C-alpha cells in the first residue's frame, strides 16, 4: 500500500526571521495589563478622594462684601447729654455717612438687656449689633456721642484701615496701658492682620473711638469683652477697664490689635488728658464734658459744631 509521503522539507530553509517582539506573550496580555494599570489608577484616585473627603473643609466663614464699607455706631445716652446736643451728634453722623455711603447705627441705653450692669456696656453690645445688622459691612466704627466728625473729606477705610497705611501708623512695642505696663503691643504685627484699631490717651486705652474689622475675630472679641464675668466684676471704669484687662491677659486679642496715634480717630478738644485736636483732624472729642454738667457738652462743642457744619457744607 502506498501512503502519501510527507512533502519533503526544502533543502533551502527560509531565512531566520527574528520574532517581532522580545516577549511574544505580551501582545495578548497587553489588554490585561492596560486593564490592571487602569484599575490601579482608579484605586489611587479613590484613595485620594476618600482621604480628601475625610478631611473636613475649613468652615467657610462669611466673607463680608464691603457693603456698606463702614457702619458708624453711636450710643446716645439721654441721661448724660441734652436732647439738643444729641440731635447735633446724630446729624453729624448721618451727614458723614451719607457722604461716603456708610450706614449708621444709633443705640439708646436700655435697648439691650445688660442684666444690671452699668449702662456704659451698651457700647459693646451696640457694636455687636452692628455686625448682626450689617453682616456685609467691612468695618464697624464705634464713635462715642462725645465726638464729632470734623473732616468729612477723609474716608476712614482709606485714611486708617488700609493694611499698608496701618503698617506705618501702628505703634509697635508700646506699653498697652500708658506709663509702664509690661504688656506691650506686638512688634511684628502686619497691617493685614489687624482686626481692631484703637487709641490711647494719657490714662490708658480709650474706648471712645475704635474701629473693628468685620469677621469671626470681631465677634469673638466683642463677646469676650461683654462676658458676664467681667460685667459682674467691679471694674472701676466698667467696660474700659475690662478692655484693658482682656488686652493684657489674652494674647489672641493683643495680637490683632493696633494702637494708632490719638489724633487719627480720637483727638481731644483739650490737651489735658490726651492729644489736642488740630485743624484737619478727622475727629474731635470732649471726654470730660458729660461729667461736668448737663449743658457743658453743648457749650464746649459749640465752636466745633459750627466748624464741622461749615466743612460739610463746603465739601
Amino acid at each position, binding site marked *: 500500500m502506498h501512503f502519501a509521503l510527507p512533502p519533503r522539507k526544502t533543502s533551502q530553509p527560509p531565512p531566520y526571521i527574528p520574532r517581532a517582539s522580545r516577549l511574544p506573550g505580551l501582545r495578548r496580555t497587553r489588554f490585561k495589563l492596560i486593564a490592571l494599570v487602569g484599575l490601579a489608577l482608579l484605586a489611587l484616585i479613590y484613595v*485620594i478622594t476618600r482621604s480628601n473627603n475625610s478631611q473636613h473643609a475649613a468652615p467657610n466663614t462669611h466673607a463680608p462684601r464691603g457693603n456698606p464699607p463702614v457702619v458708624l455706631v453711636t450710643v446716645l445716652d439721654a441721661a448724660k447729654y441734652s436732647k439738643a446736643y444729641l440731635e447735633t451728634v446724630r446729624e453729624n453722623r448721618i451727614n458723614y455717612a451719607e457722604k461716603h455711603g456708610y450706614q449708621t447705627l444709633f443705640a439708646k441705653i436700655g435697648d439691650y438687656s445688660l442684666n444690671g450692669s452699668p449702662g456704659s456696656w451698651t457700647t459693646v453690645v451696640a457694636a455687636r449689633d452692628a455686625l448682626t445688622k450689617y453682616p456685609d459691612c467691612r468695618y464697624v466704627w464705634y464713635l462715642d456721642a462725645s465726638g464729632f466728625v470734623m473732616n468729612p473729606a477723609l474716608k476712614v477705610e482709606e485714611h486708617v484701615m488700609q493694611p499698608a497705611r496701618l503698617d506705618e501708623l501702628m505703634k509697635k512695642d508700646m506699653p498697652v496701658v500708658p506709663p509702664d505696663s509690661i504688656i506691650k503691643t506686638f512688634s511684628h504685627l502686619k497691617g493685614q492682620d489687624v482686626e481692631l484699631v484703637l487709641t490711647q490717651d494719657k490714662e490708658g486705652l480709650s474706648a471712645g473711638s475704635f474701629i473693628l474689622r468685620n469677621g469671626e475675630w470681631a465677634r469673638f472679641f466683642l463677646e469676650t469683652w461683654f462676658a458676664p464675668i467681667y460685667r459682674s466684676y467691679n471694674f472701676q471704669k466698667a467696660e474700659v477697664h475690662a478692655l484693658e484687662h482682656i488686652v493684657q491677659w489674652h494674647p489672641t486679642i493683643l495680637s490683632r490689635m493696633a494702637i494708632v496715634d490719638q489724633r487719627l480717630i480720637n483727638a481731644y478738644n483739650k490737651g489735658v488728658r490726651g492729644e489736642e485736636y488740630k485743624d484737619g483732624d478727622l475727629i474731635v472729642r470732649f471726654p470730660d464734658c458729660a461729667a461736668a454738667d448737663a449743658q457743658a457738652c453743648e457749650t464746649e462743642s459749640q465752636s466745633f459744631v459750627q466748624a464741622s457744619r461749615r466743612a460739610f457744607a463746603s465739601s
Partner: protein
Amino acid sequence: MSLSRSPSPVPGGGWASPGLNLSSGQSSPRLSGTPVMWGSARQKRGGGGGGAGYPSFSTRNQGFFGRHMRRLSSSLPRFSTSPHYAEKEKLGRGRWSVHHLPLLGRIRGIMARMGRKMKIRLLILLMILLPIYVFYHSPLVFYWRRSPWLGGGKKFVIILGANVGGGVMDWKGAREWAIERDSLRNKKKYVARWGYELEIVDMSTKKRYAHEWRESWEKVDFLRTALRKYPEAEWFWWLDLNTFIMEPTYSLQAHIFDDLEKNVYRDINEYNPLNISHPFTDPYLDAESQSPIGDGKAGSINLVLSQDCSGFNLGSFFVRRSEWTDRLLDVWWDPVAYEQKHMEWAHKEQDALEQLYIAQPWIRKHTAFLPQRMINSFPSGACAEHGNDARIHYHEKDRDFLVNMAGCEWGRDCWGEMYNFRELSYYLNRSWWERFKEDFLALIWFKLTGQRVKF
C-alpha cells in the same frame, strides 16, 4: 640495578642538582602504595604517547570528577564561614550560576512548565496569603494608617495626663503606679495599632506658675504645647489617666470623625443636665449664633466633648486645631474669672468651660457633644445616685469604646476597676483561636472529664 633506586634520576643519566629538569616537580610521587621504580616511571612516561614530557601519573585532572570538581563545587551554594562575608575580592564568586539568568526569565520558565490548574491554585493561595501578610504582619499597614493622606493617623494626637499625684505631693503608691502602667500600655497599644501620636504629659503638682492659684489648670497649657509640637495633627484628644480604651479595634476615624456630623449633637437640649437655656435669644446676635446647632456643618466643630450626669466632662474630649481653639485656650483661664469663682468652681477648668459655654455665643457655635458612651462611659460606681443609666454607664453588650473611671479616687477602688475593665477588654477582644480554645475545646474537655482546663 643500583641506579634505578637512586633518589634523583636524571633522564640523561648522571647526577644533577634536583629540581632543574622537566619533571622535577613530580619527582616525589604522591600515589600511595607501591613505590615507584625509576624504570617503571620511565616506561610509563615514554609509552604514554603524549610525548610531551608530562608525567602521566599525576593525581590532578584525573577522571570526570577530578576534572570538573572545581566547576561543580563552585556552582554549589556555599555557606559563608568567614565573618567578613562581604570581602571585596570574593564578591560575586561562588554564587549560584543561575543567578546570572534574569529573574523574569527564570520565573517565566517555571510558569511555562506549570499546568494551568496549578497556576490558578497558586494564584488563589497567593491571594489569600498576601492580604494576611499585608494586613496582619507587614509594617505597611502601620504606615498606611499613619500617613496623613491615606489612613490619616498622624492627624490625631492623644494627650494622656499621667503622673497624677506625683511630684511634690508624692502620694503615689504601688496601686497608683499599677494604674498608670496599665493605662499607659493601653494607650500605647492603641496608638501603635492605628498610627496616632501619643503625648504623655506630667500632671504632677509643681510650682510652675508665679501665681500659684493656677495649679491644676495645666490641661490648657498642655493642649497648647501639643498644638505646637505636632504641627501636622488636626484633632487632639485629651484623656485622663483613669481611662481605658475597651475596644482598641475601633479607630477614631471610623468611630467618630468620618461621620462627625451624624455622631454629635449640637443642640444641648437633647441632653441638658445643667439646664442651660439654649439657643441664645438676644436680638443683637446673628442667625448663626441664635441657631441651636450653629451652622450645622461638621467643618465648624472645633470642640467635641460629652456630658455626664452633672454637666460637662473633660475626662475625654477633642479639640481641633483652629484659630477658634487658640482663642478658647487663651480665654479659658482668666484671672478675673478665677478671682470671682474659684470658691465655687470645684472642677476648675470644667466649670470655667461651662461658664464660657453659657455666656458666649462664639463658644457655642463651635462646640458639639457626643453621646457620653461613645467616648466616655462611666463604670457603675460613677454618677451612681440614680442607679444605672443607659446614657451614662458602660455595658459590655454594646462594646463601648472607652471607660472613664471618673472620681474613682474618691472612695472607690481605682485599681480594682482598672483591673476588671482590662480583663474584660481582653476577654471581649479575644482572637478566634483563643475563642476556639476557650469556648469550644475547653468546654468539650469539661463535658468529657469534668475538669476545667486552661490551654
